């Protein structure tokens, strides 16, 4: 009754358009990147969760009004020593979530560096979201909301404070990103893949369906 349209998927899927996006997660170690995504993936929308072999790569679909947005979520290693690998991961990503820990200012600085790097080197149209994670630890907060908010506005980022622990704003963040993603067909990186993915009505699948439908 109330949650329709807010990302809850309720059937009707075959009619909806499916858009697939690569989303990369960046941020320092231990800021909760993985937890954030796990919360998202294993939380509310589990009916669209896809099985993966581990938590480094997760896939999750959310339903917007007429579109199913499928995120392929690429986690990156937060350790500085792996920094040089990051471009491999954000290359071709259409969305990024840069995560920091509101109780650790240095992670915020690192996040800013990531944002800068993304804006310089990633796809020009990449949608970047900044997540101030661990918002449940408000009493240990060392990065002010306003500070991050201002930064986000200045750099045109989506911004939310999140808590992977309490789920605060987790789904909201992903939904906000989903809404910002271009939904046109051409936006998909691999045309073939998208094409195959979208056509749910193709005759072959149909024929199978009808078989089982009995």
């Amino acid at each position, binding site marked *: 009754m109330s*949650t329709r349209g807010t990302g809850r998927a309720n059937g009707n899927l075959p009619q909806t358009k499916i858009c697939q996006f690569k989303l990369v997660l960046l941020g320092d170690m231990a800021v909760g990147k993985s937890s954030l995504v796990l919360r998202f993936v294993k939380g509310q929308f589990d009916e669209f969760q896809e099985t993966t*072999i581990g938590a*480094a790569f997760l896939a999750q679909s959310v339903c917007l009004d007429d579109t199913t947005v499928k995120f392929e979520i690429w986690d990156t290693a937060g350790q500085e020593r792996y920094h040089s690998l990051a471009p491999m991961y954000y290359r071709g990503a259409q969305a990024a979530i840069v995560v920091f820990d509101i109780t650790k200012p240095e992670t915020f600085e690192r996040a800013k560096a990531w944002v800068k790097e993304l804006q310089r080197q990633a796809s020009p149209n990449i949608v970047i979201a900044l997540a101030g994670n661990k*918002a*449940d630890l408000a009493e240990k907060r060392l990065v002010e909301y306003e500070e991050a908010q201002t930064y986000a506005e200045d750099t045109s980022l989506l911004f939310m*404070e999140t808590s992977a622990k309490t789920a605060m704003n987790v789904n909201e963040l992903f*939904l906000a990103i989903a809404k910002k993603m271009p939904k046109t067909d051409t936006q998909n*990186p691999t045309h073939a*893949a998208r094409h195959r993915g979208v056509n749910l009505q193709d005759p072959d699948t149909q024929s199978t369906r009808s*078989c089982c439908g009995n």
Partner: protein
Amino acid sequence: MSPQVPKPPLPAQLPSAVPKISSSPLPRPPPPPVARPSSPPHPRPPPPAVSKPSVTTSPVSKINKPMPPSISILEKLIKTCPVWLQLGMKQDRAMAILSKERPGIFLVRRDVTQKQMVLSVHLPDQQGEPQVKELSVKEEKSLLYLEGSVLVFENIFKLVAFYCVSRDILPFPLKLPQVILQVTKYEDMEVISSLGSEFWSSALNSHEEVENVGDSCGAQDKPRQSSSCEIQLSIGNDRLWYVNPIFIEECSNSRPPTSPTPVLRTQSLNTPIQAPPKFKRPPPRPPSAPECSLKHTLAKSIKGEFRAVLTSPPPPLQKGEGSDFELTEQERQGTPASGIECDTVEPAVLQATPSKDSTKPVSHRVPPVPTRRRLSEKQPSEEPMQQEVTISTSTEVESKDNIPQVPVAPLICLDDNIEEMEKPVDSQTQEVSVEEPQVTIGAPLTVEVKRPDVPVAPPRRNRLSQNPSGKAMLSKDVSTSIPPLNNSSPTIVRHSHCINTGHPKVSDVSLYSPEGGAPQPDHDSYSTSSTEEETDNMATGALIKRTPTIMLDRAKQRLSMVSMANLSNVLTGFMSADRKLQKRIVEMARDGNTYFGNLVRDYRAFTLDTMRKHSSSTEMLQEIRQMMTQLKSYLIQSAELQNLQEAAAYSEEKLEIIIEVSICKSVLKPLREAVYSGLKDIHSHAGNLKKLKENQQVVLGSTTTDLGVNTSVPETAIMDKIQIKLGNLHKEYSPQKKIDLLLKTCKIIYESMSVGSQGKAHGVDDFLPVLMYVLARSNISALLLDVEYMMELMDPALQLGEGSYYLTTTYGALEHIKNFDKQAVTRELSIDIQDSIHRWERRRTLNKARASRSSVQDFINVSFLEAGSDTKTLGVRPNTTAQDLCNQCAEKFEVLDPESYCLSVLEDGHYKPLGPQEFPLAIKSSLLHSEPRKEYYFVYRHGRWQELETVEETAPTPAPEESLI
């Protein structure tokens, strides 16, 4: 009665977030969170001050912590159902009662006209909204669900219990009257329930505001800080049995992960299967409640389900994700370590059919977890077999969208098996064969479907590999169907893959279409399936692969269960058509009499010829991939394919998948050796292999701490297993099959990481160091070549997704090892990598640009001086003129005086020079298609261009038959 918070605070409304949200770039304020955190109306139990009639408020409830003997919500609901389950109540009465209650308070009654239960809830005041909302409780196959929701429950208690803690489609969770929330003794509940509907007007039902309302609101900000797990969430003073899986994974320790998440609806239908009598469940907690009253009420509506409810064990208090718990339990008890399949599977099969018709037994086994009505990906934990069954059953419910392909999958596997008979059977076959008979025992009993034409193949190694249809679910289905064997691995339960099939993700299935024909599709994003199967027990995989008959039987079983016997033939035909087509294409590729066969042959020759000329491995591989893509493009639009009867029924997408498999087989398989030796040369030359080897030693000499490992690393036995996987990966020719093996390897690594910290979900921060640890102990040079091979030759359509992710990560780990330095990684690495990525990226665009149909490259074999001598394969395009081709020949044959040479066609013993503006490809094409077929040669020989102007004007197509010499 319910001195509760009017509405559970929502995370999004945390003081820190709400006001600010508006200024954020978000289009609109975030929707209210639906997550579990919001579920507990009270983080803490109301203070004792809420003076209630003594009966109900036991002293214990005053304490702010969960009571030791706390009673689960479900239990409370069951015991107090006379209060809220008012099946005979009229609507107006319910309205009257609820309108006096606090928002969230509810009643369940029965709508006589519609013959269904109705959940009446008092909503918070809202404009235009009725104060009391009625939601239909739909019933389907004895499963209940709230209209509009996808979650199903086996009985009303579980449904209500779920909605007491999780709102799903409701605006907020349901609330129990305060006194019920607070009750801690069964006797108290007895008193309450004895009041029946009178409760609402009784003194027990206090409407006073609880004092701690403010308290609980305030507590919202940091509600869970104290508890690291949501497991400890509470409602009132009640511990919830509903658990958030995330935290289970993160916080839980030794216990096998079980999933509390809603289960597919289908699941419950099958339940009997999963719990054959021999598997004992934990003994039910003896109900101390007034059973009679319950029975009374229940009997009216809940179709005998009450028994199940009453006898069902208390809901798992926390970490056990309910459904999984059972499964694991079952596996623990029922399945011997040896993983004899018949133990579990067979009973399942036998019971499956009955389960479909009579759903009653079902409830007994189902954990108190909501079930999902819709087939979905996430299938927490059921036993695969069961799931398969389920799926079919669910068909009725879900309509065709979801289910269709499920049954097909196994069949296809069968097919596949046949297809691959040629493959060598490896050593594992032995074990398998032992198991085989056992499994089959059950099968004949259930086989109802006749499918005479289903081929029964001998055991074979790569079962799925050639799967022509590229259905993702194939592998899933297969793998899932044999779970018991795997049970030693902690991850066993992952999900039912077959279910995915039906889901929206069906799209993915095609998205990640198999390339090498392998089970890949799934891998590319919902990987596990096949990955899983082999994880622990190689025999498992082997079993799957080599026991086609079993699959067959199961498939039949499934078919029959869905009462689709009549359709089975169609399915069989369907899938064998996939295989046939794939085979036909491979045959065509080998047939020198077909245009395509010529193309393939020429292409291979051309590749072999030019391979050595590349100084960059990437370029070399990219060229091969490009050719493959072109072959695919050619074939898909060629008349030769259209003439194949087998291809007629296929969509282009599907054709592409099948063709990709065939092309891998006809092109990559023969080229594999050459490609590897080319790669090896290039890398040796560049010193990469040496550098890698040297640094491998450095990494080997580093401690796990140096590597940044914070988890367990694979022990020796596991490492051996990994080596086997990687060894197989190396031997494989199909990029997609390689990727599958890589994913399996990664999965093994994940599993070994979880040793000692079960349930924790490891992100890449944890994974990458362990991967490096593993790779350093592997044949790293081979892997370097493998990774490149996979990266460059995989179907470009599969570049997103899980396979690609782990490929990237493996590549990153290798690069990291290659440049390993304990101090820090230099920027140099970054440049290297970026350069490589750039090249990879280039391929993507390159392929896209060139794969368009107009630009399909073709080949012409040109002999030098006389027919058949020194023949070279030259790449030409439709618009390549004879003049252009001559220039190529001059270069290729290294003639010094190109002016004195020209191109002729030898046909019927006559040399016919070409005009400079003729299109050799068109000539070749017409010759190839001429009837009767003619021998012809393109020969580069001494001569002059044909001078006739007319030739340039007349289209070259019909080919100048009148030979000019």
